[in-house]
């Protein structure tokens, strides 16, 4: 079956929905060109600001501005999650314009999303206007950054509904015919209301991300938390593979609350399965940061092949048809249909006789799995409550499963 990964996001056609977000961190143009050449659907540029100095591309300045990284290890697995401390440093408008022009000239069929940030009317209008004139395909305005409150407090811009609406309108005006995407912290409380305001103000899409503050670990020799510069550390943004389940949950919450805005998602996706899951939860554009840092630009080939093979197998012609397909299955805990009898089952051909299912079931207090003298586990269907911990704990993929008993 012919599968096309081509998508239309905010009316912009792109060859695939995979976008590299802000890699490399200090905006080296050659690297971004290489990413587009490798086949990514687009790139997202760093936030442009009127106040930023033009980037001096020298190691001596990079040293002060680079994010510092630390992976989270678990047993033998390296970089299960990735944390980084990043200086809040937008790039200058000139740099951004130059990047847009260069990349669009070389790759006219790809999408260049220009990030921007502002704190007042002037900035919102001027920056978006200049990005529009430079030829950006989509303008992404970052409303997750802190802004100076008149009271002197720093709050995320998106939490102030009045300011949010004003800002969104100015950006909309400045951007003219270019689609506008608003970047929001996924953890925002009033989801439906925020989305309503942004839609009324003329935004086309929202970009969600989940980068909770974290500490990847502590050096047990000298007690300094990671990542550190000398003996000092700070809280990191966590955005590696481990945030996928949380991002998926946020997508679900937003997907149920938002009407009429397209959703883009950033972070946590490392392979095609993550991509399909994000799409099923309502995202139509997928942005990658940590995964590209770790695996390099070649990752996109894996993603393209994985998603298109999956679509072909499911006889689905395009990605659009999957968007939000999992949302209807979500409900709340008390509404779960618990009346049916569900029991665990073991595939005896795959079973290694390790006894872990036996151990976890006894640990829960149900004692529903018996082990013979030859270590063969059997499920006691009378006692099994169908909670599924044994299925989760079984070390062999597909060995255990849950079955619904016919009444």
């Amino acid at each position, binding site marked *: 079956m012919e599968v096309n990964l081509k998508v239309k996001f905010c009316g912009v056609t792109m060859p695939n929905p995979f976008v590299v977000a802000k890699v490399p961190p200090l905006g080296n143009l050659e690297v971004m060109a290489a990413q587009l050449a490798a086949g990514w659907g687009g790139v997202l540029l760093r936030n442009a600001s009127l106040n930023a100095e033009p980037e001096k591309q020298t190691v001596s300045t990079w040293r002060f501005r680079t994010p510092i990284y630390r992976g989270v290890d678990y047993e*033998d697995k390296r970089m299960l999650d990735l944390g980084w401390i990043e200086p809040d440093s937008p790039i200058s408008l000139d740099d951004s314009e130059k990047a847009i022009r260069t990349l669009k000239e070389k790759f006219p069929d790809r999408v260049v999303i220009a990030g921007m940030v502002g704190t007042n009317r002037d900035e919102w209008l001027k920056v978006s206007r200049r990005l529009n004139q430079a030829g950006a395909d989509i303008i992404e305005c970052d409303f997750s950054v802190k802004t100076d409150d008149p009271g002197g407090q720093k709050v995320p811009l998106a939490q102030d509904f009045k300011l949010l609406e004003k800002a969104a309108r100015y950006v909309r005006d400045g951007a003219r015919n270019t689609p506008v995407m608003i970047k929001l912290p996924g953890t925002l409380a009033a989801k439906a209301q925020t989305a309503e305001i942004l839609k009324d103000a003329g935004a086309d899409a929202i970009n969600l991300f989940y980068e909770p503050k974290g500490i990847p670990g502590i050096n047990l020799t000298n007690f300094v938390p990671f990542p550190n510069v000398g003996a000092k550390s700070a809280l990191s943004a966590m955005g590696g593979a481990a945030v996928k389940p949380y991002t998926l949950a946020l997508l679900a919450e937003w997907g149920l609350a938002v009407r009429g805005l397209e959703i883009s998602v950033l972070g946590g996706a490392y392979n095609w399965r993550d991509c399909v899951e994000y799409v099923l939860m309502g995202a139509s554009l997928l942005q990658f940061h940590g995964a590209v840092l770790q695996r390099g630009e070649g990752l996109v080939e894996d993603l393209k092949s994985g998603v298109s093979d999956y679509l072909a197998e499911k006889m689905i012609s395009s990605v659009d048809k999957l968007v939000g397909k999992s949302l209807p299955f979500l409900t709340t805990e008390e509404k779960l249909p618990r009346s049916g009898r569900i029991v665990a089952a073991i595939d005896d051909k795959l079973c290694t006789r390790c006894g872990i299912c036996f151990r976890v079931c006894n640990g829960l207090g149900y004692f529903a799995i018996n082990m013979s003298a030859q*270590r063969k586990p059997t499920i006691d269907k009378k006692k099994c409550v169908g909670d599924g911990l044994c299925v989760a704990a079984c070390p062999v993929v597909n060995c255990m499963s849950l079955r619904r008993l016919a009444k």
Partner: protein
Amino acid sequence: MANMPKVIKGFTSETTTLSYPEAIEEAARCYLCHDAPCSQVSPTRTDIAGVISRMRSRNFRGALRLVKETNFFPGITSRVSPYDELCEEVCLRRKFGGPIRIAELERVLSDYDRRSRHPYLPEIPESIGKKVAIVGSGPTGLAAAVELVLNGCKVIMYEAARVPGGVFTKGIPSYLISDEVIEHEVQMVLELGVDLVTGINAGESINLVSMKRSFDALLLAIGMGMPRRFQIPGNIKGDIFTGVDILESLKLKEKRLRLGEKIVIVGGGNVSLDVATALLKIGIEDVTLIYRRDRQHMHVFRNRYELAKKCGMKIRFRTVLKEIVCNDQGTISGLIFQRTDLKEKDDSKVEINVIEGSEFTLEADTLIYSIGQVLDRDLVDQFNLETTEDGRIKVNPETNQTSDPFIFAAGSCVERVNTVIGALAKGQTVARNIVARMLAEK
């Protein structure tokens, strides 16, 4: 010897082991089974799953402690004992991707211990005021000494050789394990406070009456000290050695061996294979092993057999030595063999019948034989101990006491012990029995 003599200086090659990241990766493959089968078949009852679980979280010191609580010689056993026929054989991971390399993990732990500035030493409990003498510092003796010290006894060990260790220092070829590992682990026993007297022939210098006065118990862990000799027709002045001789001289590097270039080894045990491998490794090209039965009747470790074959050992099954051909000076020029016919008997034993007229000759200049060990009877006769039919010390299987209740015996001088780790387990058991008896007497 007609051809040029070859001078052997001994050889050492450290067995390879995993690096720390590799070890963590290997440990992470473990399922951490419920009631882990590897721990159940471990002769010393080592909690292998617990060890692996600690290694996964990089708690090497804790993992080492857990090993050493039950097996004080992990570096030696993991290199010498056939783990692939014990804990690795039953590993459930075998089904998916092969068993966990438990021996290699234990090697990593023992190397970690050896290179650490503070090697593991257990806490020694308060003395219970008992003194035990141990004759023999082989695996059984050493393991018993550790167990006794950890039960609050004072231990004095007597060893006939110049260095302690028994089969560790004499019988294990250096291509399996370096001296450094053995020295370290034997030294740790002495660090526990075990007194060692070396170079003392117990048969001559130990007086049972005075022993009974100064000790609460005596443990014989003397092993099977003498190689079994055989009657060979022909002139026996020639280049004939026992397998144990060869291993010992290679190991101790004190005697210089002069061997020929065409070597025939008679006997189908682990010692024969070790000798063959060792000789092949030091550069002798023509080594033939002669065994009167078939491969399936050889009681040997799988990996040792494979190693010997890989090194180029030639092997002839169903063959017995008939005659040695020598010249007037006693130099061997050839060996005459006969083929045998095997007949399975009901009690799973095999009857061997020599086929008449099946003689053939092999060109050879050196004969090595290793057809088993026998008990060194000096001590046994002096103490008037009863022995069994197959020439071992007779003990009460429950208590390990010999016919003299003051004297205990354990290890291969009592029963057939196949592996070093098995001998350690025997030592631990007898030590517990000794402590129980001494406390009961109080």
